[in-house]
């Protein structure tokens, strides 16, 4: 079984795909759909990274309780992405600072980078998908 799996992996094309989260989590469906897309792509063993920019950083904010608005809360799912081998989570430092947030306000370990650093990572991708 293991051998078959590794053989099939050899035939697979692994692309570097960056997902860019730019919208706040509950006002539109974009962030949630983006998260679903990440999970699907991760199931195909793609090289996934996620960048949180602008209001996208709010998706990672601690203490979100969506019970009262009867929406699914999915901050915890971002926290569980490492279970799907999605470990490259980047947060734009300016976006965080503009919103008065620090790394301690986030539900998951992330790498906080400058915009230029994230911009450079974008150029290294096969595909960049904005949500």
């Amino acid at each position: 079984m293991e051998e078959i799996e590794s053989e099939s992996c050899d035939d697979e094309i692994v692309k570097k795909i960056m997902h860019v989260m730019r919208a706040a989590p509950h006002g539109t469906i974009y962030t949630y759909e983006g998260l679903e897309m990440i999970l699907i792509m991760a199931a195909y063993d793609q090289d996934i990274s996620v960048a949180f920019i602008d209001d996208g950083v709010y998706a990672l904010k601690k203490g979100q309780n969506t019970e009262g608005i009867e929406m699914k809360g999915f901050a915890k799912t971002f926290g569980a992405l490492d279970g799907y081998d999605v470990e490259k989570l980047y947060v734009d430092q300016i976006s965080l600072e503009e919103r008065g947030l620090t790394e301690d306000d986030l539900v998951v370990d992330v790498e906080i980078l400058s915009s230029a650093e994230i911009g450079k990572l974008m150029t290294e991708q096969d595909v960049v998908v904005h949500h």
Partner: protein
Amino acid sequence: MLHTINKSPFGNSSFETSARFLQPGDPVLFIEDGVYAVQANNKFSAALNEILKNNPVYALGPDLNARGIAEITAGVKSIEYEGFVELVEEHQVNSWL
């Protein structure tokens, strides 16, 4: 990497945000409502001039025409659909929404 921007800068932060992420030499193309960014003498002209120092900037002519934008910030090149296709052929695309 080709950066495309398709939203008006007056209602969406894509233009201002993307500017921070551009690598020197990356082309920027304004399409659809994004072309309002390049109308001459608007509040984004200064920011656009900063980008023009390190990056080629294009706007899609048919979208400019459709919106009656005749005067565009100096240095911005108006291109046709063929030029759009050429840019996409030459570069990876980063489509800011």
